[in-house]
């Protein structure tokens, strides 16, 4: 049944589009769209003060998705609240563009005077992950997750205990874990597409990079009274530069603060080699632990 259905489907597609011909100048139309987009970008850059005004005057509810079918219009003086929606669209599109790269981030986490740090790489094409954690007590852990067809293999190395273990399971059993706060590009994109509210707080320069400082609130894992969630994006490319999340166990408690700094790497052989984790010689192999959860950032 399937084979015959598949053959009919192939034939149906072939017949359906056999007469497909470009009847309009799609390049000219795309050029006009590109020109409009560039004008909008220039407008947004020129209106840096206006974006701050937008934040002061109020924030823009990004209802549904920032990437609606209707393109965002240029932020004019008459539509002072448009930049936030425009920025949301551009950030979402920048994340889409980054899906064929390796997302690299460094993390710093502090709570009650104690700090831990981490660094990870995520391959947007394969979903492979490599992570290094240095816990508050100095313990260094390394973790790698590699996809091979419908199988996933994780390798965890504990440098303090000089042990390691490896586990393999079906990709469908992969435990994504609960998203505490949006931190990966995919999670941030999903947050932007929820019923969230985005405020453009203004322009800032971080480590020599001109950025837009944004604040996201609404349908997030962080209740408004328990903290805040801010992100910085490259003012030119809209790629993620930094995310800072403040989260309190209760409204009166000291917040835990997590900061991620992002860069995007090409999928070169050298960079892809990071996803292979080989335990150092002399380390003791242990049986895999029952939990298949990957470390949460």
């Amino acid at each position, binding site marked *: 049944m399937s084979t015959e259905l*598949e053959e009919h489907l192939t034939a149906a597609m072939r017949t359906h*589009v056999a007469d497909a011909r470009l009847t309009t100048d799609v390049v000219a139309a795309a050029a006009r769209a590109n020109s409009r987009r560039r004008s909008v970008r220039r407008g947004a850059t020129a209106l840096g003060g206006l974006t701050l005004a937008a934040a002061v005057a109020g924030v823009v509810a990004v209802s549904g998705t920032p990437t609606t079918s209707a393109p965002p219009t240029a932020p004019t003086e008459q539509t002072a609240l448009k930049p936030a929606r425009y920025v949301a669209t551009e950030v979402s599109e920048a994340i889409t563009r980054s899906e064929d790269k390796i997302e690299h981030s460094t993390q710093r986490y502090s709570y009650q005077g104690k700090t831990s740090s981490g660094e990870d790489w995520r391959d947007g094409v394969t979903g492979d992950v490599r992570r290094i954690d240095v816990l508050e007590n100095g313990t260094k852990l390394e973790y790698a997750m590699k996809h091979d067809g419908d199988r996933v293999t994780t390798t965890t190395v504990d440098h303090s205990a000089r042990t390691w273990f490896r586990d393999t399971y079906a990709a469908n059993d992969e435990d994504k874990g609960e998203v505490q706060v949006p931190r990966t590009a995919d999670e941030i994109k999903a947050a932007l597409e929820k019923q969230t509210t985005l405020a453009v707080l203004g322009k800032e320069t971080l480590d020599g990079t001109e950025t837009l400082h944004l604040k996201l609130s609404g349908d997030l894992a962080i209740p408004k009274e328990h903290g805040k969630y801010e992100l910085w994006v490259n003012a030119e490319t809209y790629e993620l530069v930094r995310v800072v999340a403040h989260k309190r166990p209760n409204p009166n408690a000291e917040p835990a603060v997590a900061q991620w700094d992002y860069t995007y790497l090409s999928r070169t052989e050298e960079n892809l080699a990071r996803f292979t984790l080989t335990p150092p010689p002399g380390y003791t192999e242990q049986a895999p632990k029952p939990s298949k959860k990957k470390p949460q950032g």
Partner: protein
Amino acid sequence: MRGKPEAFAGLDAFVAERGDALLATAILLAGGRDAGQDLLQAAIERLMRRWNRIDGDPEGYVRRILYHLAVDTWRRRSRRPEVLTSLDARTVPDVTATLDLRDALIRALALLPPKQRAVLVLRYWEHLTEAEAADRLGCSIGTVKSTTSRGLARLRELTADWAVDDRTTNGARA
């Protein structure tokens, strides 16, 4: 082309040569001709942003963008209720009486979620392997397999009244 023609040198020739083939794919991905034209235009616009920075084959880049745009559209629309019209012959008896299986399949294909449609187009229009389709979509092979299975099952369900086993060679109802 208005603007800076030198910045897009070769783009017109590329579209002239490969535009029809890309449009065919876009129509199948979008589920309609007008929507396909819009999808291709959006992909070309993305191509223009990186025209001078693309290493290698621009067609591969455009096809990747086409699929990602198509699937993103699905992600966005998934939050809105959609009214899916069954191809049950009881609801459209006059039309289905004149349809053959392949017409029904194309209509049913347009009713699938874009991600399922994209996978089926990759597998049965572009004839990519599961591994190649996974690479194009940036997902696992397992996802391609399961999405293909669900897509075919849904097509079978939507075209149930046009059972393949009862077809004559031209697909008409026996």
